[in-house]
């Protein structure tokens, strides 16, 4: 059994794979639950339930355990009323059930001020920023990448500069983007673009270069020339890998989102997160982070399924 589980580069059977995949989510969840619900594991704070005779304690206050123990010792030695409290975690680590509730209530709670947005509106703003940043980047980056991967002249023309530029951190252009594009959506889209585009050209050109050259040779002996070679062999030949690249790059685009949304007027999911953190509603912060993860994973699963549909020749080929 054990040796079967740890066989080098052998696939587990379907049932085992599903179980282990579930485990991959279950393990972090269990760790989190243990820390949250088993008091002696961590719980460095004490929540005051009864202040006793300690003048600065109030009910519901969180104090460090050492401080609490000291006050208890002082109080009992001076035979005053001893304060009472329960061990608890810091406010920034809510328990799983609190976050789970927040996942629901975050959507149903009305914003505190009238001009503020609901969570789903904030999310929709974020999705639009990602979408446009990624689409604009892809419209330019994919063709440039394919050209650079196919023709050496384009590779030399684009790649040295792009290699340089991709080391410049996208957020560094924030101030510039605001100066040029204003404070609303445009500079945010620009940051996503800068973060994605340069990597994209290099990744796509690299994928294009990996196309089996003998396919091009075969096409040439069948009479394909120049531009037909590009459209009938290079592009269909790399399209499935290209699709996978774009899925990975879309994930990268999300990582630039938080920075992008802090630029100019804070907006979208980032605005929601910073706002909730300010109110110390940390369960809402976690809920929002988890929602980002869920959106990302769902998009990827949908795209993967879409890929299997539009590239029927890939079915069963991935195994070999």
């Amino acid at each position, binding site marked *: 059994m054990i040796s079967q589980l740890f066989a080098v580069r052998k696939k587990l059977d379907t049932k085992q794979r599903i179980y282990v995949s579930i485990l991959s989510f279950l393990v972090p969840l269990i760790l989190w639950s243990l820390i949250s619900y088993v008091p002696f594991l961590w719980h460095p704070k004490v929540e005051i339930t009864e202040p006793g005779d300690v003048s600065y304690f109030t009910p519901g206050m969180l104090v460090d355990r050492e401080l609490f123990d000291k006050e208890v010792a002082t109080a009992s030695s001076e035979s005053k009323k001893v304060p009472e409290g329960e061990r608890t975690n810091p406010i920034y680590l809510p328990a799983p059930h609190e976050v789970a509730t927040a996942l629901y209530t975050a959507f149903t709670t009305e914003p505190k001020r009238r001009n503020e947005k609901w969570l789903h509106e904030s999310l929709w703003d974020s999705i639009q920023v990602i979408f446009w940043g990624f689409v604009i980047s892809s419209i330019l980056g994919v063709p440039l990448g394919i050209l650079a991967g196919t023709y050496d002249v384009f590779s030399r023309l684009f790649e040295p500069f792009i290699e340089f530029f991709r080391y410049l951190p996208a957020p560094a252009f924030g101030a510039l983007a605001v100066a040029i594009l204003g404070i609303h959506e445009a500079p945010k889209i620009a940051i996503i673009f800068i973060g994605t585009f340069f990597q994209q050209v290099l990744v796509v050109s690299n994928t294009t270069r990996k196309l089996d050259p*003998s396919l091009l*040779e*075969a096409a*040439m002996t069948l*009479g394909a*020339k120049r531009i037909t070679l590009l459209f009938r062999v290079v592009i269909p030949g790399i399209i499935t890998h290209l699709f996978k690249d774009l899925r990975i790059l879309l994930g990268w685009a999300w990582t630039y989102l938080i920075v992008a949304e802090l630029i100019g007027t804070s907006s979208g999911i980032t605005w929601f997160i910073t706002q909730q953190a300010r109110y110390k509603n940390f369960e809402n912060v976690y809920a929002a982070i988890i929602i980002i993860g869920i959106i990302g994973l769902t998009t990827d699963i949908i795209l993967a399924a879409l890929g299997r549909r539009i590239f029927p020749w890939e079915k069963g080929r991935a195994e070999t």
Partner: protein
Amino acid sequence: MSKLELPSYLEQSKGVKDRFDRMKKRPVTLQVKNLHKEFDSPQGKVIALKDINFETYKREFVCVIGPSGCGKSTLIRILAGLETPSSGEVLLDGTAVSDPGPDRGMVFQGYTLFPWLTVKKNVMFGLEMSGHGKTSSEEQALQWIDLVGLSKFANAYPHQLSGGMKQRVAIARALANQPRILLMDEPFGALDAQTRSKMQGYLHEIWKNIDVTILFITHDLDEAVYLADRVLVLKAHPGEVQEVIEVPVPQPRSPDQLLSPEFLATKRRLEELIHPPEEDIGIDEEKMNMVRMVDVKHEVESVF
């Protein structure tokens, strides 16, 4: 084999001789003139091909054979236009050719089918490139697929086919363009022995029924003798034509001939040319240093 009494490979029966005479009266399809190819390598210039001269007649089947490093792949790639010679020229029906084109079909060892196209679309590829409309390409493609016996798989994708089937599609795809010459670069090299001999049979059938000249590269002596009208033997370092052998085995061929005296004689000659008896130069890198590693009292003391 050397003990066996065999006739000379130069001896041809009347039928075979007459056939060669008739063949040599046919027009020349491919003519290779003073072909020379050098590469730059870190160790300096390497001469891959030196003064290659030969011609093939219409509908002839020529095999090219030689030890590794004799430049046979370079030769066929130059003929296909995938590489340019350092000097010399290649004439197809009397016209010089340099770039790749549909007049020279090529079948590669690595199948090179387009994985994103079905069998039918793969075969249609060349036809569409040469300007045939969709309907006419499809019609012709289906005929070629039928010819190689894969009608049932017309809508399958290459990854669903076995190696032998893939290579049949590759042959159909190359033939669909109706090339003047079909260049084949060790096409059956990756196939198992059984599939390989089956494919040799198919190829001969196709060759008999279609107006095409075939130039076939192989490193398998049996394959060369079994398939070819003439065998072009190259030698290595530099790649030069060593001999052009007219195979004295009568056509049409069948597997029964694999043990006929003419067949064995030709094969022995190829063997001599390609693996000449080694001169003793003192160092033999291939010699193993064998000592007995089995215990004297081992239960299986000797394997004999």
